[in-house]
């Protein structure tokens, strides 16, 4: 197997993936880039491709990028691990986590 090239890059910030794009559904319209008040994303250099996540640690989890996307399934929210909520079934007592 060919060795993958390893780059020297700084640590990745936390969180780093506030959203997950589905490249099969996303058409790169960049609406999410525009509604984000923080500029978490930049347009992909390749037209028609999903945006690039550039400033993930500045996200304030408002959800507007996902709420306002007109292509269902193109972008899904990805809560950082420590922020995922819990709930409990009232009749069985079983605990779940998002």
């Amino acid at each position, binding site marked *: 197997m060919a060795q993958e090239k390893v780059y020297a890059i700084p640590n990745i910030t936390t969180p780093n993936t506030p959203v997950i794009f589905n490249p099969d559904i996303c058409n790169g319209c960049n609406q999410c880039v525009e509604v984000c*008040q923080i500029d978490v994303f930049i347009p992909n250099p390749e037209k028609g491709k999903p945006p690039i996540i550039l400033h993930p640690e500045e996200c304030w989890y408002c959800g507007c990028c996902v709420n306002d996307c007109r292509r269902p399934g193109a972008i899904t929210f990805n809560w950082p691990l420590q922020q995922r909520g819990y709930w409990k079934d009232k009749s069985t007592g079983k605990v779940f986590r998002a």
Partner: protein
Amino acid sequence: MTKWHDLLKEEGKPPDWPYPIRYEEEQEIETDVLVIGGGIAGCWAAISAARKGATVALVEKGDTIRSGAGGPGCDHWCNVPANPLSNVDPDEWAQHMAESMYSNGIGTQIQCREDYDALLEMEQMGGKLRDTGDEYVGAQGRDEKTKFMISPRYTRVHSYIPGSQKPRTFKSNPDQKLNNVVIRVWGTTFKPALKKECQRLGVKIYDRVMVTSLLTEGGIQGARVVGVTGFNNRTGEFMVFKSKAAVLAAAGNFSLWMLNTELAGYNTFRSRNSTGDGVAMAWRAGAALTLMERTGIMMLGTGYKHTWYGGAGDASYENVQLVDANGKKLPWPTQGWADAGAMRPTPEDMEKISRGVQTGEYALPFYGDFPAMPDIERRATWNLMLGEESTTKIIIDTYNKAGFDPSKHLLQNYNFIEGTSPSQWRTAGGGGPVLDWDLKSTLDGLYVAGEQTFSAGDHSYAAATGRYAGRKAADYSQQVGEPKISKEQVALEKARAYAPIKRSDGIEWKELHAGIARAMQYFCSEYKTESLLNMGLDTLRDIEENHVPRLYALDPHKLMRSLEDLSLLTHGQIILQASLARKASSRMLNFFRIDHPEVDPPEWNKFVTVKLENGKVKAGELPLTYWGNLKDNYEAHNKDYQGVCKG
């Protein structure tokens, strides 16, 4: 392949900056009314100024479509006593609200008189405020005729804590019917509608432009405001705006005490763009500010957890009973019809709960008992309130997708298990420019609205005060002569703002931010004395003199974050100065001086003001109700008020 490092691997180089770099370019724009901040107040100001016939430019750091605290949504149109279902008189309600010490009587009176008109205008623009689809027939508070949905909030008094205010009978409501002063709304529809209306009215919107300073006539501190400088945070282009009147609506500062710059979106409650720029630029221009010494303790989102997840017991979880892990009810208000929307336990109940947790009487964790609710109330809370509230929409969508069913499942709450000490997590407590009955600051040509005002209210307050400031600014712009800008002042500001891009080494914005936050934590927190406060000023001066000159920014976005740090630094200095000026403690201001321990002594029940005069700090004071009779003064200043805009 959507992460930066994916692209690096694919292309063998980091992506190019996606926007043209235009540091060398400059634009000059002229307008009658200039609005700083395109949030709720800013959009309303722009709309009402444009309706008065003024030319309007609106400058926004993000994109007006969803920017600001109210961008994602709003579920409570609070304090709207002029609505047809209300049982109290707007003036009496305003007076009631203004009676709490250090409130903003002027803003409150405007809100109570005019936010129902604003709401009806919101509907004209395409905002949804009624249950027109009959989704919630049978929910308590729903009115079949108007299809308005009244919220239980404030149905007795203007308070979240039961018993914190004396029960009272309003003259206008002698039979003590429910006050009905808060309306549930579909606020996710609001912000895009506001932007569209701005565009329809010909407001020139400058998105992704950060305003960095106010320009004054002759460049003189304290003179009339004649414009602003700014820059595009994507391209770096410098902008000079020349205006006859300006409305400052850039809201507050939520990260001054916040050490960590990662994950900060959770802790700050407001977005990262809320950095006190407005107060900092007003201060440098010479405006008098008040209540700057007040701080608030952040109860929300502390300890890296987002309490909007809270299951019950905060903001939009109306009518949800909090229970312990065994299903036992807690003496915690349900924020519902049973307790007039109260959301926090009384201190005695809180003590009881704490003790119960220690003794095992109440098992952790707690849960919001959604299944116990009547179906219609549950739907109103889950789908309407949490669905429309704001950042909660994505939260409930996430739960829904993951299989949470509110008719069967209890939603976990994080009180106690997330830690109970919020003391480090502070926020600036809503100080701002001193205002008159036109919402004008002490500087000619500068009006103020929304959370930028001292002791501001909420979304409908921002809408009503924005709408009011916009029309007053438009009137003023029609009376004054051409603004003259000082070239020297512009050049000085450009040199200040662009210094960080001239360097590629030194100190980066995140470290600077942490340094400033640490100084505030050490020297301006619960332990306040004259010498600690002075040490704070010394530390910030050291940062200003020795570290700011090393600040570097590698692109226009980082330049924006760097300049925000400079706002934070100035904001910190103002807070320290105001804290030195108040030589007494105060419960309402969350302000405790070890060297002046007497709490709220009568001689200190007044607004302390601070301002810069010829570069020197000058403290002053104003009486607590400096606005005089609310009703009379409102009427005297609004003889020509037209009510709801026709079409």
